[in-house]
């Protein structure tokens, strides 16, 4: 059927007729400008389409064309360092064609069709291969091996395979049955990529943020929800992780957020050097951008696109982190489309299938053994910001997330107003990964890591109780020992948990630095207690010097850290001296 026409347009939704033979989720071209859209409902011979581009100007009777496939992305070398919109079009390419502003109706492939990659086969003609097997490698970026995989579902005996320089669509190998394989293959983004089996994970994902690594750790392959009202620091956390956390590849999804933030990411990520590779961090990053004024339907797609790309690198054996900001905007896109379809709304107007879709999405994170040979293990860690209306966590998106995630990093507006950053509310945040990672931290951090952690949490709890009491009777009325607790908790908040994302040496904390700061805190508590026991009054403790010393350790340059720690130890042991 080629003569399907638009019979209705409202918001991001169009209806076309006759289009009853289309498939659900089939990609279609809508109208004279050939806007991309996706069939989301079929009723008799009418197809309902969510349009991924601006629909203003779309008119009745304009043609609608089927494409025969669903929304695909092409997976292959050239993804790293790219900046693409929610449906995978490179934004630089769009800008070259249509200038500073987005113009609907442009199609552009995600992977550059002309770039040549030098391919080195790792199997020979005659070998039997199946889906997921490694055919060979391409150096995608300096030091970054991109394994060329047999697409899931394909396989057979290799008839021919040639080393050489190829574009992403050139044939690099042929199978006995005539199947040709290239450096890339298409994948439907809504479909998860297969793997051999899931693996448990006990390896922490080192975030470089002390409050997470020390108090609420996450594992490689874990999932975390980061809810918080506006201005509580979600984006700063996502960006800090993308910059400094220890993963091989970062997929950053700017979903329904600000254009200026994306400009900031591009500005920073191009300049910041990854100390491990000596390359700009943009080299290990894929940026998916759908700002809040870009079409709503593409917001839905952007999250699946990011997930698919992450799974693809996972299948090569990499640890990939997805940083999604914000999943609420994705859920709202579903709500907006659902409302236009006149679906029966569930809680707060969200479609009733929201929790289901969310858990299926979160479940795509994990640590796995890949399909195929040689054996590889990879992981996708999923960290998503959530923007609850009014900062109230009882809303559906936060609640649906909590049912599936392994950790909650809850951000609190009053902490943010006090400029206590990261504004993590340690009373309600949690991590189910703590026990699993104890061994690793004991080995790599320090033997008493877990003890220090428990003590610190206890200190913060005690602090809250004491502050309530002090609010009633005044600090002066407290015992010296309680005042020491208040002071210790203040140090913990300011220097251990608190971290300034904009300070060059404070923005990232190594596991060792985190451990030493925690140790110093407990040295302070012990020494303070001993001094009070020796009848030194609380007033006499030289707290100003201690706080200065903590400040110096916190912001110490890496080569000065050791000395600052030594000096702080000295200051602490002297603090009660007359």
């Amino acid at each position: 059927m080629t003569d399907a026409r638009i019979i209705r347009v409202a918001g991001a939704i169009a209806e076309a007729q006759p289009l009853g033979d289309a498939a659900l989720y089939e990609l279609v071209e809508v109208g004279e400008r050939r806007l991309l859209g996706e069939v989301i409902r079929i009723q008799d011979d009418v197809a309902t389409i969510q349009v991924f581009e601006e629909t203003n100007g779309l008119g009745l009777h304009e043609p609608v064309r089927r494409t025969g496939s669903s929304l695909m992305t092409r997976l292959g070398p050239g993804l790293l360092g790219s900046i693409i919109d929610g449906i995978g079009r490179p934004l630089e390419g769009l800008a070259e064609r249509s200038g500073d502003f987005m113009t609907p109706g442009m199609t552009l492939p995600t992977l550059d069709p002309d770039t040549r990659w030098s391919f080195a086969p790792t199997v020979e003609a005659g070998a039997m291969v199946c889906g997921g097997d490694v055919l060979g490698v391409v150096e995608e970026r300096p030091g970054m091996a991109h394994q060329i995989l047999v697409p899931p579902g394909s396989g057979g005996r290799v008839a021919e395979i040639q080393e050489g320089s190829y574009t992403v669509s050139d044939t690099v190998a042929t199978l006995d049955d005539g199947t040709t394989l290239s450096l890339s293959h298409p994948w439907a983004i809504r479909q998860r990529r297969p793997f051999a089996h899931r693996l448990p994970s006990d390896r922490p994902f080192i975030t470089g943020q002390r409050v997470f690594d020390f108090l609420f750790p996450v594992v490689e392959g874990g999932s975390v929800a980061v809810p918080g009202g506006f201005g509580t620091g979600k984006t700063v956390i996502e960006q800090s992780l993308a910059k400094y956390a220890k993963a091989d590849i970062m997929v950053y999804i700017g979903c329904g957020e600000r254009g200026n933030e994306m400009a900031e990411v591009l500005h920073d990520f191009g300049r910041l050097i990854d100390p491990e590779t000596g390359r700009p961090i943009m080299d290990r990053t894929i940026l998916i951008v759908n700002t809040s004024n870009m079409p709503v339907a593409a917001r839905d797609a952007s999250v699946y696109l990011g997930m698919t790309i992450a799974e693809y690198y996972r299948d090569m054996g990499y640890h990939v982190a997805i940083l999604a900001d914000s999943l609420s905007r994705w859920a709202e896109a579903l709500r907006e489309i659902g409302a236009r379809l006149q679906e029966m709304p569930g809680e707060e107007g969200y479609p009733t299938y929201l929790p289901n879709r969310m858990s299926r999405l979160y479940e795509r994170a994990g640590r796995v053994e890949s399909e195929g040979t040689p054996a590889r293990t990879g992981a996708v860690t999923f960290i998503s910001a959530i923007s609850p209306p009014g900062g109230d966590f009882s809303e559906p998106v936060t609640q649906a997330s909590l049912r599936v995630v392994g950790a909650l990093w809850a951000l609190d507006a009053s902490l943010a107003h006090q400029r206590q950053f990261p504004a993590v509310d340690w009373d309600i945040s949690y991590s189910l990964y703590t026990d699993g990672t104890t061994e690793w931290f004991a080995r790599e951090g320090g033997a008493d890591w877990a003890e220090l952690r428990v003590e610190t949490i206890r200190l913060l709890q005690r602090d809250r109780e004491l502050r309530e009491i002090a609010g009633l009777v005044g600090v002066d009325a407290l015992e010296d020992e309680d005042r020491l607790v208040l002071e210790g908790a203040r140090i913990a908040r300011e220097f251990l948990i608190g971290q300034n994302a904009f300070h060059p040496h404070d923005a990232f904390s190594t596991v060792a630095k985190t451990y030493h700061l925690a140790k110093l805190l407990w040295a302070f508590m012990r020494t303070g207690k001993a001094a009070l026991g020796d009848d030194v009054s609380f007033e006499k403790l030289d707290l100003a010097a201690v706080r200065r010393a903590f400040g110096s350790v916190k912001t110490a340059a890496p080569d000065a850290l050791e000395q600052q720690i030594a000096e702080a130890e000295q200051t602490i042991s002297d603090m009660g001296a007359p």
Partner: protein
Amino acid sequence: MKRLDAPIARTYSGAASAAGPLLFVRSTRRAKLGEWVRIGGEGQEERRGQVVDVGTEITVIQVFEDTLGLKPADAAITLAGETATTVVGKDLLGRALSGTGEPLDGLPPSIGEARLPIWGAPINPVRRQHPSDFIETGVSAIDGMNTLVRGQKLPVFSAPGLPGVELAADIVENARPARGEPFAVVFAAIGITERETQIFVSRFRESEVMERTVLFLNQASDPTIERLLTPRVALTTAEHLAYTHGIHVLVVMADITHYAEALREIAAAREEIPGRRGFPGYMYTDLASLFERAGVLKDGKGSVTQLPVVSLPDDDMTHPIPDLTGYITEGQIVLSRELHQRGVYPPVDVLPSLSRLMNAGIGQDRTVPEHREWADQLYAVYARGREAKLMAAIVGSEGLAPGDRRALDFVDAFEGQLIHQGGTRRSLVDTMRIGWSLLETLPRDELTRISDTAWEARGRDEVSKEPPR
């Protein structure tokens, strides 16, 4: 948005029905979403509208004027063949126009340089320049503590009875770009009262400010639905000045709350499923289509900076209008009733206020190197003092630790000397000087946020790129 192909107008006679601001028309072949509509007919006043839903059976038109007295059966409905447009050009500077761009100043309509669709297309994110140029507003609480930069969207959270509009007017009069580049203001008044309108018109007319200002006035008595057009007409005008003429444009939009209420009215008329407090579920997206039009382009000369004013219903920050605004904008300037009642002007509460782009716009080569430390330290002492104040209300100031007591005294000095400035303009240099003198009243030991270098360098008498006076 792209203009539709060669606009061809078609006229239909008679609508099937009308309800509130909506008109339902049968079998409008080839109607396009967003198409501009003129509604007239025998004995009917001319009205304007826009297609919001096209269908082969029924097409829905949203009418911008009051529909009182409109007879659907007699209406002559002309689809213009293009989306809403507005005349743009440099000759608009100095003009006072209605909320849809008709002259209000008795002068003939401007000829302009072009006619542009008002539904601005999104800036391609890779073409955005990261905003980092300081704008001096002349307001200490902003310049010193919550710096505004070019390309930012920074709303003022006001409330009924608080001087949000006055503060916006001050900024319009006093703002200067950092290096004396071309500068203009586009002011979109959205549903504001006659009294507020007078504040601007008379103040701007008297000063030379009017020469570099375009005023769009949709007043409280004007049709509500027209409010959906006013900010877009204003932003289209601003974008043209910025990107065609290389001018740095400050767009003030007051009051966004009235805009949001118009949005709710249309949603209700369309029988859409209401979201929180009856506002439509797509209000975030809709507000973003306004606020995201702030920005700076790469290799471009001009910029669009937004200063929306939002009045908080019930002084409630979690109300959907300020809440969604805060989720889109790059910070907020929050006015406090308590400070206002104590006569502090502008009554800015710096604790919940924030400029998220401040870091990029201050420091070495932008303002002064120690700006960050200065602001952090003032903030820290003030925050401590405010907490102490709460505690003192229960236990009395004698129950406080000595540091807390000092911070408590600091609160009054800070509010009275730094925040309060009456109607006068203050340079950043003066603002910083006042801040340093406040800090000097405290023991150096307690100023942990200030490094020795910053402390030694305090009291500079110029900023890095001294703005022309």
